[in-house]
């Protein structure tokens, strides 16, 4: 029972945040709402018993990415002018596309409607660590390379003297 309440709360947080992200005019508010939504997702991870993921989500997403975005928005300054429309003119078509996708997904989700689990949640950190340094060692190394490349790229792009 308590799990259900937690789930619904977290879900509400995540969805509300998400809706705010795409609808709010002010980009700063949007970015803040993103942080909220990401935190909600983190809560959902916790509900699923993914402790390491929960921590990672909070640290990287809420603590890192969301903040980074807020910084960026503030750096842009004037770009977030509020008098402009923030939604473009193809919203109707986009809505249609979303509806179609939703219909498709609905059907797929229906397959798992009654799949439930009775297994208790266990600590996962150790297993993840073993996996990453064991079977997934190569992807692990590669993703670190990707991160390095992204870092270098970001530094390169944001240099002042680039024209």
């Amino acid at each position, binding site marked *: 029972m308590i799990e259900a309440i937690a789930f619904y709360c977290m879900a509400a947080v995540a969805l509300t945040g998400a809706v705010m992200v795409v609808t709010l005019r002010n980009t700063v508010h949007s970015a803040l709402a993103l942080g909220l939504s990401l935190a909600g997702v983190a809560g959902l991870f916790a509900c699923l018993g993914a402790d390491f993921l929960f921590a990672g989500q909070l640290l990287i997403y809420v603590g890192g990415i969301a903040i980074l975005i807020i910084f960026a928005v503030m750096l842009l300054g004037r770009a977030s002018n509020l008098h402009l429309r923030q939604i*473009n*003119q*193809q919203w*109707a*078509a*986009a*809505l*249609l*596309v*979303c509806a*179609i*996708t939703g*219909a*498709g*997904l609905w*059907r*797929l989700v229906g397959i798992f409607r009654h799949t439930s689990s009775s297994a208790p949640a266990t600590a996962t950190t150790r297993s993840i660590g073993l996996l990453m340094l064991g079977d997934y060692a190569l992807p692990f190394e590669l993703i670190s390379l990707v991160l390095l490349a992204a870092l270098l790229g970001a530094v390169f792009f944001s240099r002042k003297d680039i024209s």
Partner: protein
Amino acid sequence: MRMLEHVYLIPLIPLVASFIILLAAPEDPHSPMPLVGIAAIGWCLIQSVAIFYGAVIGSIHIPYQMDWSWFSFGATIGGKPFLYDMPIGVLIDGAAVVMLVVVCLVSFLVQVYSLGYMHGDPHFKRYYAYLSFFTAAMLGLVVSSNLLVTFCCWELVGFSSYILIGFWFERAEPAYAAKKAFITTKLGDLGLYVALLLIFSLVGSFQIPQIAQFVAQGYMPAGAATAIGLGLLCGAAGKSAQFPLFIWLPDAMEGPTPVSALIHAATMVAAGIYLVAKCYFIYAASPIAMFAVAWAGALTALLAATMAVVCYDIKRVLAFSTVSQLGFMMCALGCWGYTAGLFHLTTHAAFKALLFLCAGSVIHAVHTNDMRQMGNLSKKMPFTALATFVGTCAITGIPFLSGWYSKDMILEQVYEYDPHLFFILALSAVLTAFYMFRLVFLTFTGTERDLERYRHAHESPWTMTVPLGILAALSIFSGAYLSHNHLFERLVHFDPPAGLMPRMNVAPPGLGGIVFAAVACAILFSYRLYGRHDFRLAEDLKRRLAPVFNLLERRYYLDDSFLALVDLGDRTAKMAFWIDSEVIDRIFVDGWDLLAQLAAQLGQLFDALFIDRMVDETGGLSVSVGGALRWLIRRGMIQEYLLWTAAVLSTLAFLIAWR
């Protein structure tokens, strides 16, 4: 008999000579190469005369046939497939024997004559190559036993005619005339082509004896025989310049005059007559085709004769006269006068070649074709004048000259078959006398009308006058020789199948006398109009009959009709191309565009309806529609691409999920 075993060499040797002349030596106005051509045709002439002589004395048995395998292709006749072995071979019958002599003789004389006439022409050598090539093709046409090979040679003589008419291609008129001649004859050849297809689809062979046998055994349906006969007539009308396809022949006079003598008077234009004669068994099986031949010939004879009356160009008068005489021959063939037609062909070859070569001699002397600038030339060139006079008498039918024998034969035959045709031909004969003597009077008698030209006029060199002399002798004596003891008739005759003889009237005695009297009147009338120094009467007559003269000078508007036809063809072509580039191409190229636009319109409509439901107060329909329009036509927008991608993917996902 041995002679005939190598008769296939007769067309081949001039062919080889032609290529030797063309390729073996550089272009040179004084090249000795023409002698090769003359030697080749001389050899052919000796052979042909020997064959003719052998056939006359009976030491050579005709018809003689010899075939070689050429190539084979699969064919199906009446549902039965077989491998048709196309033969190439020779078939020497009486007509072919005579034609061989005619072609070789005229060709030989013309080549000798050209030594003088074309002397110093920059393309002297090439001229001889072309002449030899023409002779080869023409001889091939004569001796071939295979109708398809005949057709091939038929086209090749047309091709030689094209290159020879256009020999002086630096001027625009010969180039145009060459093209016109080829296309007009090609128009007739279409009929011939279809006739050949029809023959093969029925008989399964192109061999003339086999086709004849097929007809003789009565397998040939009457309708098919008529169709084939008419098709052949089309081809013959093109080549032999019959109504209404004779328009090319007067223009063909742009070529060198010896060429006109050889190709457009004596030999090639007779090919049509020869073809009809060669396929006479088909006409024998179809009265309708026969009737068409007769009337085409008669009409041509009359129309051409009337046009010659008003013409002042010496070569064109002769051209019209040729057309008219060919009409005589055609008409004779159409009246069961097989022998008469070919007899006239033979005699005509001699005197018409003579007349053309005389005209060439005159043109060589005064450098103009216009008879109004000549006059009194008999003083300057007596030999030419005499030869012309002989030729004129022959063509007019003065008794005991060659033309008299053949023309008399035709008129009698035609009267027996159909008196209406006889009157038309008789009228043409009278007109012939009139315009031929008009030519003689205008050119050689009266006063010199262009002193400058008159002063420069001179008699031609011996290379030109000797052929004239030989031809003049032939024009005088050949008729008598050939009709002596029915020599020609024994050699060249057609035996109609039993029970197919047509109705016959009996020609009244003295028919020839009446015609001759009329001819004599015409000559006197011609003398009255043109024989003396003043032409006031002629001018007066011309003024009174202005509309008629106009009609004749415009050649019955047939040339204009031809031009209109060409114009029509051009317009059709332009229209076809317009359709091609503006309609068909558009349908396929712009079709996709159109489809895309249509889809866009539909999408817009859908959007309008969709948005109509969904739009909030502030948005407003117009803004949304405008927006929809804008996103339909904008380009380069990332989100638009994204949207399309998403749309496709989501649709796919939807389809997969709900399958």
